[in-house]
């Protein structure tokens, strides 16, 4: 029963992880940019949701699309004004540029929101589904807010998937993802596609932040932790693919949960990073072993 509970924990955690990583993966895959800002975008989304809930009483799940919208606009602006100027530069330049932007955004949030840790504490709490209430022999428990956040995150991921497959903009993004130069020759305006893609990545981060706000403490410094997870998940699942981020997230969640059980909680981070390095070396295209485009 312990193992089943750990598996449930791992899957729920994995769902949240997928939600953290999808936008990061999209930007990395399409723009070839490792976006260090991603973690800070998630935190910003969480702050927006926090103030929407405490100030206006808007439920974080309801607010998630608005957080996505705000971050979409911010992302679009950042891409047009800054990233686009270095988009053709080597990875070192783009990565360090987003690092500089992350320093700036984190410091801004520190000054504006102060460093106090906050969390959306839902009233009333969503509670848990305790299976032992109905089946006394089955001692398993599922927290409703994690489940709900995961499901809403899946809705956003599904939306992205639909968008990439069935809209003109989406098709253009996929085309650029496959071959940037061929897409240009086909008449795709890459500058615009880059901006939309970066904005979509930011929007997904914003939504993730809102969905995570009832679960994790919010602080200007939480960004790097999310970013670290996004790295591992992308490498696990393969770059730039929506389904890859989903699989990568789930695998990491389950891996960490069992890792903490078998090796002790202080080693679970080491475990996930070690897996990342090994995968990079032996299966650089992710555990699914193929380059996914959607």
């Amino acid at each position, binding site marked *: 029963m312990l193992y089943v509970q750990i598996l449930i924990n*791992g899957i729920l955690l994995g769902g949240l992880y997928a939600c953290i990583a999808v936008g990061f993966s999209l930007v990395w895959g399409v723009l070839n940019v490792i976006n260090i800002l991603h973690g800070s975008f998630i935190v910003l989304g969480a702050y927006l949701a926090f103030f929407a809930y405490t100030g206006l009483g808007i439920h974080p799940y309801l607010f998630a699309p608005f957080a996505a919208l705000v971050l979409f606009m911010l992302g679009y602006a950042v891409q047009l004004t800054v990233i686009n100027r270095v988009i053709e530069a080597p990875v070192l330049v783009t990565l360090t540029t987003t690092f500089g932007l992350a320093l700036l955004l984190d*410091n801004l949030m520190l000054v504006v929101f102060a460093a106090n840790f906050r969390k959306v504490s839902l009233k009333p709490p969503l509670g*848990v589904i305790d299976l032992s209430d109905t089946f006394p022999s089955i001692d398993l428990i599922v927290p409703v807010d994690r489940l709900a956040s995961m499901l809403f995150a899946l809705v956003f991921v599904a939306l992205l998937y639909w968008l990439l497959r069935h809209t003109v903009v989406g098709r253009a993004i996929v085309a650029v993802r496959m071959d940037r130069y061929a897409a240009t020759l086909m008449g795709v305006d890459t500058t615009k596609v880059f901006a939309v893609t970066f904005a979509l990545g930011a929007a997904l981060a914003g939504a993730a932040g809102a969905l995570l706000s009832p679960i994790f403490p919010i602080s200007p410094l939480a960004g790097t932790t999310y970013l670290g997870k996004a790295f591992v998940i992308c490498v696990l699942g393969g770059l730039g693919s929506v389904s890859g981020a989903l699989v990568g997230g789930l695998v990491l969640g389950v891996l960490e949960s069992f890792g903490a059980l078998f090796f002790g909680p202080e080693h679970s981070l080491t475990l996930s990073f070690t897996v990342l390095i090994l995968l990079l070396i032996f299966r650089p295209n992710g555990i699914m072993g193929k380059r996914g485009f959607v």
Partner: protein
Amino acid sequence: MNLGNVRRGVLAALMASAVVAGASAAELPIRIGAPLPLTGALSPEGVKLQQGYELWKDTVNAAGGIAVGSVKRLVEIVYYDYQSMTPKAVQLAEKLATDDKVDFMFGPFGSGASKAASTVAERYAIPMLAPTASSVEVYDQGYKNLFGTFTANDTLSEPMADIIKAKAPNVKRVAILARNDLYPLALGQEFEKSSKKRGLEVVYFEKYAINTLDHASALTEIKAAKPDWIIATGYINDLILIRKQMADLGIKAQAVTMINAPAYQEFIDATGTLAENVTTATWWHPAVRYESKDVFGSSVKYSEMFQKKFNALPDFTNATGSSVGVVLQMAIERAGSVDRDKVRETLVKGGFDTFFGPLTFNGVGQAISYVPPVIQIQGGKTVVIYPEVIKGGDLQLGVR
């Protein structure tokens, strides 16, 4: 090297002539160096400490300053942000000593950084008052210039274990989850000792890594171990998350102790009803009732003044920030001088009645003279449940 000596000699001669020349030197403010983590991981605590320093400084200066012999001298605090990076704190301590030439220093935040920065204070023979260093490892280096206002970690675990033993005789099994970091880990180990000493069985003891984002596995194991008393140590974000995930997994226990976050209002705000009946121990609480001979007059007046300035009740980190100020002030006033050796001597003698509690330091400079209160969150408020003289309620059992 010769050149340097000549320069220093000239400087010393100039300074000496300035002192002889008249009172102008005496009117200079007393400079205190304060490296703080104003940005980075520890910035919430850094800001709290700064509030404590500022309240003390403003109060003293409003009263005309510190009485040094017959003259009153204002206080000036030189702040630097060490960005929550310990080496930077060490570097800045040296800057304060050599470049800013401060008279005294306040320590950086936490045991680790205090330990590292105290090396600089010792080298330059500048008395350093550490507001937030509780682990004995900080003091056992045998330095002469380090004085800390926090009592040792076991003064938190011992009373807590006493109360549990007395008020909850059914508690037999203890689970401890500690952050793998200097202070939280040392504290976890103290709780292990205190529990075993009282015949309680420690059924679970694990460490979790810094930056852990998920505690579900550890907590699932804890649940399976069926403990009666759960103890978690860490910083505020860790403990908010752990408390939330305990509820996610339906963990119930007779007693839950978390150190030190529940003493902060942020913990109660962030966990809501889950904070109910969580216990913690802390070195100071607005409910303590000390009469003092310092610039504040009493703990009650201190709280009032803090509330007036910052529009919130002070917590133990705010208070300890002010405490190092008042101790230094009292030591200077007793010594009648800002001479570091004389001030150090009076600090060693101890016997300071402050709003923070009576302060006397042991042979290695750590406070040993007061009993830290144990508190519990009841009805969304912190209530002191120990020591008897100041308690506002009794231990309530049952955390769901």
